[in-house]
Structures are given as structure tokens and as C-alpha cells.
């Protein structure tokens, strides 16, 4: 597989019929604004009618199962299994498109909703039909104004031609890291607060309005829209047996063209970096899977392939498709301390071990990164990591612990140097890893945001 085939940058192209190779999702993506309904139809064709039987399995769910599509929100859960679980629960389901992207290093959902709203909405509409759902909710970050506006326009545009009776609602979600977590999203949609809840019940049992609720990532719905058009066989033409299809990746750091790329699942990460114009500075390591993910030393760049099983060899996972390159100019210890402080601030503060543990971790790592580094502090970090893992209602403490642990393992030499000599020259370099400022006021709000206009087609 050549790099030209395996990656695709955000550049407008056109294809007719079942497209061969890449791009799939990003086909015809406009550099500014969004594809309107007519352009969307001329590019992908009309939305196919899938039959649904009251007693038998829906045609769409069967096709998705054959395609082997897995959720692209980070959990990599088989989409057909999730649909089945919702279909098998009592009550009329609700479908939620999760485009709430709390991960500061991820922009794929923002890109999809801004530029290709109809592709995402197609997937949602198909799921609504397959499940006989009564409502389709699209959840977008409050700060993603472009995505919000283009979805609102797209929903209005589809209104006149909508075949399903389901109403479509566009809802703004606070820009918090944990707000996109599915139970937090459900809680927000129920008008409580955008904070994770204790499970069970899981959303497929009792979600929005206590009804069985399908919550999937926006990219997953976009894949559904194409699988319904071109079939499972077409979907499997790309990717690996275990991880078929293509995936959206947000690449950032010292590369010539950072941005959202569509990549074949299992493709070498080196080809992604090449497609982005190559490295603009020597790389020290790559962060895979976002701020709950893992670091991999940059010397493995040429052997890394973007799939669950390949990255597992390096203790990493694709997560929601986040790849951040850290340059040699940055101090990994200082970056880790900053990240730890940010992660502590993003704790919902509901669970004691997460609230106190992440705070203590951030303080210890700041000590290591600062002047009075101490060998004993590293032991303290290890001890704290054991105290936060698996002890929260959501996976935030687990993800934070994973990231800090992998930073300590990957940057062992830098941590050693800091323990011996204190701060280094690179500590003064400007921060490389993007962080969103925590918004305390949003965190404490218990009412639904004002930015949730209901739209009825």
C-alpha cells in the first residue's frame, strides 16, 4: 500500500458511484463552509431505504454487522452489537449523535459536522429508521459554532424532504473533557448536569427520558451512511480483518500540515506523517489516542500501524483517532506535569479518588518538573496511580493514569535527569500539547445550556 492511497488530506475531490480507495468520508469536503443537500446527493447519491421488520432484524443492522464497523468515539465497540442492544430493550428508542468532542487534540467531529453535516445526519436517520426511534438528537460542543450552524442549516434543509417522523434536536454540550462521555451526555440531555453517572443503567437500557438510547460518535454515523449505500463488502475493501474500513485521524504537532486526515485502518503511521508534509522538527514521541492514551517513542514511527492490534504491541490504542507528535524541543516532563494539572482540572469532582488522586498526581509531577525534584516523588506518583485506577464512575481517572504511566515509562531518561539535576533548558520552551482552558462556570451549571434550540422538521 502506498502512502498516496492510504492517506488523504482535506482537499476537495469528486467521485461517482461506489468510490474506490480513499477518501470515503472526506470525499468532496469543502475547505470552507459545508456541502449542501444537493451537493451531498450528487456526491453520494440519495439515502437508501432500508427495510425494518417488527420481529426480524433490521436490514441495516445486519449489514453493519457484516461490515464489522466499530465505534469511532474511542471505545472501539462493535456498532451492530450496540444497535442490537438498543433494539432489544423495552420502549421506543432515541438516537444520539455524539459530536461533543472534549478532547483538545481531536477535531474530527468538528470537521465532520462543519463540512459534511448531511453525511452524519444520514447515518442518524438510518439508525432512527432501523430502530423505529422517535427522536434524533445531535450533540455538539457549545464552542463549535461552525458545526452548530452548519448542522442547523442542514437539518432545516432536510426538513422538507424528511421521510421519517422522528424529530431532530440540536443540543449544545459544555466544553468539558468529561461532557462527551456517554452517561454525562445522557445526563445533560435529561437536563440534569453534564457529568458522568454511576452505571448501571447503561444508556441502551435507560438513556434519554429513561428510554433505550443509542449514543454513537459522529464519525460512526458517517460510516453507517456509506455502508448503507455501498454495502459491507465495499466497507471491508479497506482496512484489516479485525478493523475494517477507514478512520479519521487528527494529527497535530511539528508536521507541515496538521489537520484531520482519513486513513485506512491498519495503515502505517509513517504514511500519515508523510501525507501531512513530514516532520518539521525532530520528534521525541507520539501520543496516540488522546489525553487518556499512551506515548510511543518516535523511533517506532516507521513500524507503527494504525490499528487496535498493531498499536497494542506498543501498549497503545487508536482511541478516537488522535495522533500528537511531540518534538525534541519540548520537555516531556514539563509537558506531562501540565497535562496532569489539566486532567485534574477536568475531573468532574464527583468521585473522591479521582478528585483527590489527580490533584495529588498533578502536584507530585509539578514537583518533579520543578526545582526541588526528588527520587521519592516518583514512588509517590506510582502509589497515586494505583489509587486512582478503576476507582471512578467513568474512565477519566483510568485514562489519566494510563497517560501518566506511559509518560513515565517512555520518558524515563528525562525523568531521571530531572530527579538528578532539576529543571532543564527545554522546560522553558513554550508548551506544545494543546489544552483547553477549564471553564468552571459551565462545570457547576446544573441546568441545560441555553444553546439548545429545538428544531422540528
Amino acid at each position: 500500500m502506498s502512502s498516496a492511497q492510504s492517506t488523504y488530506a482535506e482537499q476537495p475531490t469528486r467521485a461517482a458511484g461506489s468510490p474506490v480507495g480513499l477518501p470515503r468520508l472526506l470525499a468532496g469536503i469543502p475547505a470552507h463552509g459545508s456541502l449542501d443537500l444537493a451537493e451531498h446527493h450528487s456526491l453520494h447519491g440519495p439515502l437508501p431505504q432500508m427495510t425494518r421488520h417488527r420481529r426480524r432484524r433490521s436490514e441495516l443492522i445486519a449489514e453493519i454487522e457484516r461490515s464489522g464497523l466499530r465505534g469511532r468515539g474511542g471505545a472501539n465497540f462493535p456498532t451492530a452489537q450496540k444497535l442490537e442492544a438498543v433494539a432489544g430493550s423495552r420502549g421506543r428508542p432515541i438516537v444520539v449523535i455524539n459530536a461533543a468532542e472534549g478532547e483538545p487534540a481531536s477535531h474530527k467531529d468538528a470537521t465532520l459536522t462543519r463540512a459534511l453535516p448531511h453525511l452524519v445526519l444520514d447515518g442518524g436517520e438510518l439508525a432512527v429508521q432501523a430502530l423505529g426511534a422517535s427522536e434524533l438528537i445531535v450533540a455538539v460542543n457549545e464552542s463549535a459554532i461552525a458545526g452548530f450552524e452548519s448542522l442547523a442549516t442542514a437539518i432545516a434543509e432536510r426538513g422538507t424532504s424528511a421521510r421519517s417522523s422522528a424529530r431532530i434536536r440540536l443540543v449544545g454540550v459544555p466544553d468539558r473533557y468529561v461532557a462527551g462521555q456517554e452517561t454525562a451526555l445522557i445526563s445533560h440531555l435529561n437536563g440534569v448536569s453534564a457529568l458522568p453517572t454511576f452505571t448501571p443503567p447503561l444508556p441502551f437500557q435507560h438513556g434519554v427520558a429513561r428510554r433505550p438510547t443509542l449514543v454513537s460518535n459522529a464519525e460512526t454515523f458517517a460510516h453507517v451512511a456509506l455502508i448503507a449505500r455501498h454495502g459491507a463488502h465495499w466497507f471491508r475493501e479497506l482496512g484489516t480483518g479485525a478493523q475494517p474500513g477507514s478512520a479519521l485521524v487528527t494529527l497535530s504537532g511539528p508536521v507541515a500540515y496538521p489537520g484531520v486526515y482519513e486513513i485506512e485502518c491498519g495503515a502505517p503511521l509513517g504514511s500519515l506523517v508523510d501525507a501531512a508534509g513530514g516532520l518539521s522538527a525532530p520528534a521525541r514521541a507520539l501520543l496516540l489516542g488522546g489525553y487518556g492514551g499512551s506515548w510511543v517513542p518516535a523511533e517506532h514511527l516507521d513500524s507503527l500501524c494504525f490499528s487496535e492490534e498493531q498499536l497494542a504491541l506498543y501498549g497503545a490504542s487508536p482511541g478516537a483517532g488522535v495522533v500528537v507528535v511531540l518534538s525534541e524541543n519540548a520537555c516531556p516532563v514539563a509537558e506531562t506535569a501540565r497535562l496532569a494539572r489539566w486532567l485534574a482540572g477536568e475531573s468532574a469532582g464527583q468521585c473522591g479518588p479521582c478528585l483527590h488522586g489527580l490533584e495529588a498526581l498533578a502536584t507530585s509531577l509539578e514537583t518533579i518538573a520543578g526545582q526541588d525534584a526528588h527520587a521519592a516523588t516518583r514512588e509517590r506518583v506510582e502509589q497515586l496511580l494505583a489509587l486512582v485506577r478503576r476507582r471512578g464512575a467513568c474512565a477519566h481517572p483510568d485514562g489519566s493514569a494510563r497517560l501518566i504511566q506511559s509518560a513515565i515509562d517512555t520518558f524515563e531518561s528525562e525523568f531521571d535527569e530531572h530527579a538528578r539535576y532539576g529543571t532543564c533548558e527545554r522546560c522553558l520552551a513554550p508548551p506544545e500539547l494543546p489544552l483547553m482552558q477549564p471553564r468552571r462556570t459551565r462545570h457547576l451549571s446544573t441546568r441545560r445550556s441555553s444553546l439548545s434550540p429545538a428544531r422540528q422538521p
Partner: protein
Amino acid sequence: MSYRLRVNPIACEAHGMCAELLPERISLDEWGYPLLGEEPLDPALVDHARRAAAACPTFALLLQRERQPR
């Protein structure tokens, strides 16, 4: 049939009653939140566990019955 202890970490407010009533299985971390073992509960401890769960001021300690022992 086996029993397993679980804590609702959102409800738990670190009162520490559970560790007083079931020290065989529950210890407290440095902030006062319970640390529970993963393995199923010894049948001899089930009554004590039930009392500990009932004594929790926030009902955060859960004693869950499992049909198939994992």
C-alpha cells in the same frame, strides 16, 4: 451464587463506616475512600457485608449477587 462488593464512587463521601464494619475486606485510602478487593466475597462474610452496606450513610456500598461465579 456468589456475592461481590461494589462502591458507587459518586455517592461515596468517605464516611468510612464500611471499613469499620468489614475490615476483613475493606480498607481506606489516604483520603478515606474504601478500597475493595476484586474477588468474590467469602460466604462467611456475607452477613457482615450486608450490615456494612446497610450502615453506609449514603448507601454507596453495594452488595451484588452474581449468578455465575466468574
